[in-house]
């Protein structure tokens, strides 16, 4: 498959069902070390405690959105190189470009399938 499946992944979404869906898809792809956070604040807290190989984040969360999380991560010298995939229903052109400008590594539109997730992880993680 070409994945480094031991890589720890952080899934950030306030909707537990979506976390579960992404977890299951990642499991199908062979990833077992998957952690999750319910918003950007929780995610930052976890990222300061542990180095993740990939962050997969929703956009629309409170109190810190995925977009704000992305900008915070990119502004942090320790974390700025962490691959970051936005998985979101925000598919308007302006939002996609804004995320790109903020440094997102890849952008997946909900609803999505395992193949899309797989191809984006491969592209982002250089596999």
């Amino acid at each position, binding site marked *: 498959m070409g994945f480094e499946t031991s890589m720890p992944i952080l899934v950030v979404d306030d909707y537990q*069902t979506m976390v*579960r*869906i992404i977890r*299951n898809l990642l499991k199908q792809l062979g990833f077992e070390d998957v952690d999750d956070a319910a918003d950007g604040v929780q995610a930052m807290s976890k990222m300061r405690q542990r180095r993740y190989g990939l962050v997969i984040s929703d*956009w*629309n969360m409170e109190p810190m*959105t995925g*977009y704000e999380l992305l900008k915070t991560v*990119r502004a942090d010298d320790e974390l700025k190189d962490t691959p970051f995939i936005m998985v979101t*229903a*925000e*598919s*308007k*052109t*302006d*939002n*996609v*470009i*804004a995320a*790109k*400008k*903020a*440094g997102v590594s*890849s*952008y*997946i*539109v*909900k609803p*999505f399938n395992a193949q*899309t997730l797989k191809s984006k992880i491969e592209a982002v993680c250089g596999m």
Partner: protein
Amino acid sequence: MTDSPPRPALSIAYATTARGPHPRPTRSLEALAGEPAGSRSPIVRELNAAADYLRFLRQEIARLGADEIAKERIPVAIRELECIVDGTEKSSNAIMGAAEEVIAGAGMAPEAYKAFVAEKMTAIFVACAFQDLASQRARRIQSTLQTMERRLSRLATMVNTRHVPDLVDFTPAADEVSEIGPAFPDEANDQQRVDEIFEEHHDIDWK
């Protein structure tokens, strides 16, 4: 709106022909204007016109049914939305749970697994019934919004305030990226288009 009464023009002509159903003020307009009773001086006629217009405005605002909207329609709509969110979450969890159990049970004996899968499929079908309930609830919310729109639209037409954009705060959210939430189908980009946008902007350097 064809079922609406004519809107009074704030004019001398209207003031002299229409009074409306409401009682006159305790103190006569003539007295307010310092004129003798029954005076038809210009200032009394203007005051009459203004009073008529205010009565007309009160009637139109009353027709909004603000109390009924605030106390009945909005609370019901909010409850319906909560039920939709709750029902969707429960159904999703039921479907997810059944699917996860089917995957986890793959090691079972074939016959037992077949019956097990059939049972879980039935659970998934049942959970999908939430769609029907959600549609019915959504239609009630839609009806409330349409009623509010109709009433506000009527008021705006009657008081001739349909086009006053300068008075309305259309300022978007402070975030540079506005309109957070799923896009409507005609505004949304699919994955292929998003990938193309990424390619078109490959030279953007966030650093």
